[in-house]
């Protein structure tokens, strides 16, 4: 019936003994301006609609590495339910720290973050590599696809214990219709290779 979506659970809630979930995110992620995404070229999996198979950027555009060191990189990154009148949605939050300051960082990063919309790909420590079907499809999670991640907090405290004078950044995406989006193509290695191409210097354009 059209107009009625995702109102039913479709599988059991049983933790995997062979591939138990683990917390955390890897230290390296990728961030891109949402305006640089070539939505026309991007392809979703034909049956699994929370999987993007090809996430392409417009000609001449590239994404940028985001590296957050430490034992809990991107700490505070989460997804929560937001109840609505007619429909419930989700709010994504991605937190990062910029352990730097200075005119270049402020001009090229912070000022851009302050007013832009972004898509971030983070690699989960839990990758689902031991699943029977589509191993590795839980590795790369995409935030900001639907609405763009926008700044909720951008602060610089010269005496911060956390940032040592760098910048605390919190980006948020509200009214997200799906609980999560993943980037996955064929297997983990192929997907990792695709993610790696995002930050290369663009050819053509």
């Amino acid at each position, binding site marked *: 019936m059209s107009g009625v979506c995702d109102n039913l659970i479709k599988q059991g809630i049983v933790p995997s003994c062979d591939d138990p979930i683990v917390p955390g995110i890897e230290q390296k992620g990728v961030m891109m301006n949402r305006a640089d995404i070539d939505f026309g*070229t991007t392809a979703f999996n034909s049956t699994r609609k929370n999987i993007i198979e090809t996430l*392409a*950027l417009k000609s001449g555009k590239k994404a940028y590495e985001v590296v957050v060191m430490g034992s809990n990189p991107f700490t505070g990154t989460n997804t929560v339910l937001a109840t609505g009148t007619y429909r419930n949605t989700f709010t994504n939050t991605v937190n990062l720290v910029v352990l730097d300051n200075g005119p270049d960082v402020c001009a090229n990063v912070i000022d851009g973050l302050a007013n832009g919309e972004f898509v971030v790909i983070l690699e989960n420590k839990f990758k689902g590599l031991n699943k029977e079907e589509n191993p590795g499809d839980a590795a790369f999670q995409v935030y900001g696809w639907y609405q763009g991640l926008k700044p909720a907090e951008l602060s610089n405290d010269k005496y911060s214990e956390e940032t040592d004078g760098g910048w605390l950044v919190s980006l948020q995406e509200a009214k997200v219709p799906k609980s999560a989006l993943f980037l996955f193509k064929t297997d983990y290695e192929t997907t990792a290779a695709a993610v790696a191409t995002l930050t290369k210097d663009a050819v053509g354009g």
Partner: protein
Amino acid sequence: MIVLEVVDKLKELGGKASLSLSDKRDIESLYKEVLDKTFVKTSCSDCYRDAVIEMSVYLNKNGRMKEKSNYGLKNGVLLQMSFGDSKFYTNANLTDEAAETYLGKYPGNANYFSKLPKDWKERVEKRLKPKETEYNQVLLDTLVESLKDGVSKEAVVESFKDYQINGKKVTKKLLTAHVSKALDLLEDEAAKENDEHYAQSDNEVHADESEIE
């Protein structure tokens, strides 16, 4: 520049304690030539040395400069010739052949490319066209003679399997193509002889008829 010249130049640059402006220009230019990438200048003081190392490693590993492609992919795209194929192409290993083969299979995915030559459709068509076999005339003549002598096709293929063309052993596929061509030539020759025979017979019949009249 040839590979050996580039290798020597990289050794020279790598050995310098400090790099002059001219050395940096050389590195930028070599970077494009060897890796087909544009060197991005940053404030990093080791970047030029890193670039020299990157080029040296590439040449050591591959023995040649990176093949320049007339095609470029949008960032984020990788090509697989068939769904789920473990082999894939990115800008790092894309060749004209791979791009055109892919576009031959999936012409609707031209939008995956950020760089396409203007005549890409013609190139793809040419790539898809089966290559015409280049026949070796000496081999062809020899095969025709063998077949004329009544040797079977299979026996001919067996006896010529080690035949060499320009110092290289002929492949089974190429030999079979030559044998088929030789058979066609024999058929054409036989058909021609038949036509000539009937034409001669016709002339004789007409001559007899004229005599009778």
